[in-house]
């Protein structure tokens, strides 16, 4: 197989453009109410998770229902690594070295995400040979298993009780940093030689295999890398809220993050960003309506629960009318290079 590598200027331009937009949002958010700042932080963390998802789903074309379990693993790992020794002694029953260890936030985050990636590697090695519908179903089973374990393993996760009092070091800038790092990684991955090999298999498995691409190997790598970033999202999530509970990492969050990915378009990094933005905005709008919105005269309000219904409806409509998502294959970085291309062709 010859070289199929090109420097991905479109991808890096995309990541940069999105990062600039995020920077502007964060700068502006600094002047708004704390409640709004919290929304921005949450959506930055969501973006981190969705970009992590995209690294696997977008490049391989395989839907994974289980990635939220890596979020749980990352979050719980970081919680255990950063909680005070006394708290761990009281709330949990951990083996000696885990009980006595206490790391500062950055090393803990990296170790936790790395641990989740390691678990992903172990699980992935088994899963990755599955074909067709079996692979998504296996990831679904993984979500179920991690959920049941997290809910019942009182000694390690606290079971159904939330672990509280985690150090809260995640603010606007930390969340922004996380999102930007993920964007850079995703941009790099999809223009990298191995990322391109994986994308070939997305289009046509048989042709890719016939060309000598080891699909299992490429999928495994993407699976592990994406798990790392999703886990990082879990870490930031836990240290933003200051608590962690098993129930957060189940079907609802799986649905919301998949919706964010698909609404924008599963196949492009820009799509991951657009989808997250659209879903966040729509959710906020519905949330305000639930609280009651003053429309010059009368109050428009709706019962709680409308938000989820609205989101599901919008997702369905988008899938029906624009099957490839709002932006499809389009990467925003490509608009910067169109003129150069036109000049070259003429």
């Amino acid at each position, binding site marked *: 197989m010859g070289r199929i590598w090109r420097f991905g200027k479109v991808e890096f331009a995309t990541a940069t453009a999105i990062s600039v937009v995020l920077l502007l949002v964060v700068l502006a958010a600094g002047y708004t109410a704390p409640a709004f700042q919290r929304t921005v932080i949450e959506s930055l963390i969501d973006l981190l998770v969705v970009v992590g998802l995209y690294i696997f*789903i977008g490049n391989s*074309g*395989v*839907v994974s229902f289980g990635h939220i379990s890596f979020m749980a693993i990352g979050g719980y790992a970081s919680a255990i690594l950063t909680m005070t020794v006394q708290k761990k002694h009281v709330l949990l029953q951990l083996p000696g070295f885990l009980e006595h260890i206490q790391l500062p936030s950055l090393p803990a985050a990296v170790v936790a995400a790395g641990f989740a990636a390691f678990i992903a590697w172990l699980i992935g090695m*088994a*899963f990755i*040979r*599955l*074909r*067709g*519908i*079996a692979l*998504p*179903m*296996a990831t*679904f*089973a*993984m979500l*179920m*298993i991690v959920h*049941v*374990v997290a*809910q*019942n393993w009182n000694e390690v996760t606290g079971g159904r009780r939330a672990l509280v009092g985690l150090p809260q070091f995640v603010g606007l800038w930390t969340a922004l940093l996380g999102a930007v790092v993920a964007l850079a990684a995703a941009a790099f991955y999809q223009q990298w030689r191995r990322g391109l090999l994986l994308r070939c298999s997305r289009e*046509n*498995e*048989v042709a890719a295999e016939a060309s000598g691409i080891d699909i299992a190997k490429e999928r495994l790598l993407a699976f592990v890398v994406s798990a790392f970033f999703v886990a990082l999202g879990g870490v930031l999530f836990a240290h933003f809220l200051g608590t962690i509970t098993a129930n957060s990492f189940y*079907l*609802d969050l799986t*649905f919301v993050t*998949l*919706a964010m990915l*698909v609404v924008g378009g*599963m196949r492009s990094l820009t799509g991951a960003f657009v989808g997250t933005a659209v879903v966040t905005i729509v959710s906020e709008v519905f949330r305000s309506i639930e609280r009651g919105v003053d429309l010059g005269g009368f109050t428009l309000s709706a*019962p709680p*629960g*409308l938000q*989820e*219904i609205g989101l*599901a*409806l919008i*997702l*369905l409509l988008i*899938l*029906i009318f624009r*099957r490839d998502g709002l932006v499809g294959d389009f990467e925003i970085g490509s608009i910067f290079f169109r003129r150069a291309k036109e000049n070259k062709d003429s």
Partner: protein
Amino acid sequence: MILVQNAIDAISLGAIYALAALGVGLIFSIMRLINFAHGELIMGGGFTLYVLTGEPYIVMAVAAILIVTVLALAMERVAFRPLRGANPATLLIASFALSYLLQHSVLLIFGSRAMGFDFLGGLNQSIEIGSLRVPGLEIAVVVVTALLLLGLTLFFKRSAIGIQMRAAAEDFDMARLVGVRADRVIAVAFALSGMLAGFVSLYVVAQGGSVSYKMGVNMVLVAFVASVIGGVGSLPGAALGGFLLGIVSVALQAFLPEEWRPYRDAFVFLLFIAFLLWRPQGILARRADRERV
């Protein structure tokens, strides 16, 4: 004696799982669509029963089955027909979205608490057979399932539309090329799937005595696992998968040591993964489980 008791429990649970798996497997075999919203069909049946509390049981039951069948047909017409031909990932997520939508709509209307009421309460009494005490409900389940399976088998073997459906499940495009009407076959598949979900909802309510917006979730997960185990595209396989899963569930419940009982579901899914690794195409699958090239 305990063993026989467990065996009966296993068979009756397996029967219900088989019906649930058939409901999911029917749609999957013809359309390659995993219908996450099948659980909400079961939920729909349950809530129909709830709304009709107080009516004679037979009225409640027939109404539930009819309404769920209509709901399934509506689901197909509104959500899945516009998506026909979309890639598998899109279909998967769309059915997930539909499931989410229906769950939260019911949550909005009825609230989150489980609501208890009486349906077939009398059947929960045990009947004495020899030295065994068997819950009447379990006997009813086995009998009804046997009748349904017999009816379905005859339907697929003898009726024109049944043969058309078997052809469509094997090779959808070729079926169209011999004149099989795609719309009709898919509609019948959804109607049957709804009918089966209706029967499952009767059982779930009779057994649990209550309904909630989340009541379909567990059953549909079981249905997926069972139909995948039984084999892609194989209806007898889905039924077989259901029975196997019922037996495994009861066995785990009976033989797992005490401290590990809360993890029972995790074990079931672990066994599922192990099974997928061993035989991803399922037990009775007739052809390679690979998406069309």
